[in-house]
């Protein structure tokens, strides 16, 4: 029996399968960097498909890569005595693992795929090497960290400080 595929579905399929088209999507790290610097990072990119339910960043475990989400959605979570606190969801263009890579401290949040995700991985060692050579990357680093902080502050602002019962946690989606 023949399968009918619309043009839109085929375009979507191509965009998911073709890594080159994914790299053209803007992300928090590359936007604002010079073409030369973006070129340096592009040479190091490794693509991965990560199924829904898998963790991109694990709590308490130092990441080996910087992770850039190309497609799909992820949820950012904080844990407190066995309670899961979802801070919000993010999608294409979001960068994860940066704070842990730079500070050497283990992540305080967990990032889990809530859809199948296509991600770019940039090895930690290479990322830190480039960062040392080009201090201008720190501006992008500061912007990424600021966006993480804004998410946390927005959560605090929107939460009732009187009580935060499990399951009653407001989630902020971008």
């Amino acid at each position, binding site marked *: 029996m023949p399968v009918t595929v619309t043009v839109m579905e085929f375009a979507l399929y191509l965009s998911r399968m073709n890594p080159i088209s994914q790299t053209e999507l803007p992300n928090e790290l590359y936007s604002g960097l010079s073409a030369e610097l973006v070129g340096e990072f592009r040479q190091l990119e490794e693509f991965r498909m990560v199924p829904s339910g898998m963790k991109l960043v694990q709590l308490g475990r130092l990441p080996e890569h910087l992770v850039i989400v190309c497609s799909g959605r992820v949820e950012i979570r904080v844990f*407190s005595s066995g309670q899961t*606190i979802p801070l919000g969801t993010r999608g294409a263009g979001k960068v994860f693992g940066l704070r842990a890579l730079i500070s050497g401290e283990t992540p305080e949040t967990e990032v889990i795929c809530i859809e199948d995700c296509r991600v770019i991985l940039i090895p930690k060692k290479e990322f830190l090497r480039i960062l040392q050579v080009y*201090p201008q990357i*720190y501006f992008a680093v500061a912007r990424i960290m600021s966006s993480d902080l*804004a998410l946390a502050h927005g959560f*605090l602002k929107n*939460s009732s400080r009187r009580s935060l019962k499990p399951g009653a946690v407001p989630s902020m989606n971008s």
Partner: protein
Amino acid sequence: MGTSFNFHIIEDCLKCSLREDRLFCNLPSEALDALQSIKATAVYPKGAMLCLEGQPPRGIFILCTGRAKLFTTSAEGKTMILRVAEPGEVLGLTAVVSNTAYEATVETMEPSQANFISQAHFIQFLQSHSAVGVKVAQQLTHNCHCAYEEIRSLALSNSVPEKIAKLLLSWAEHPLMMQKQVSGEIPIRVTLTQEEIAQFVGTSRETVSRTLGDFKKKGWMRTKGATWWIMNRPALEKLVTT
């Protein structure tokens, strides 16, 4: 170093004896030279607003001396203190680097000195000195850690006494150095008013007053002006963990 009304004004970052202890200022001399040329030093009285929530970013403030509270107002008009900034911290960083409005109002809690750097100058400063980039990353890491701590504590603390006990215990981590010290007592300096403590833990001033009165009655703490003494730390710890 100038002095006015017993307040020491530090004009020159290169000669500042405090910078080694500070989160941001301990920079290499080349970066300090650049910092010296772009910053504007000002002294603020207690209660001065350095920046306002929702205001377009003008620049960052490096808090040299004094302390400042960062607070935000919810949609319901409730004031919430996000944290108290200590000397050496950079304020307004998130707004300046992401070119968004200041996300909190910063108000000095005591006479303070702050160095102001305009947005354009700061971004150029950040992009040209990797040591500055490292310090900015450290500051943002610290800020994120504080925010995540606050979120975690939201999930844990349910009762007001528990929240206030937690706050007292966190202040007890940095006890006041006093010449005469009673064994077993932890002296702390509290510059927050009861109203501000209420804004910190999300309750009313009356409830804070009642809770502190209860703690005193139980012999867990005593107060004299801005100096408080924690007399029974285990009792407060027990309250937090139960």
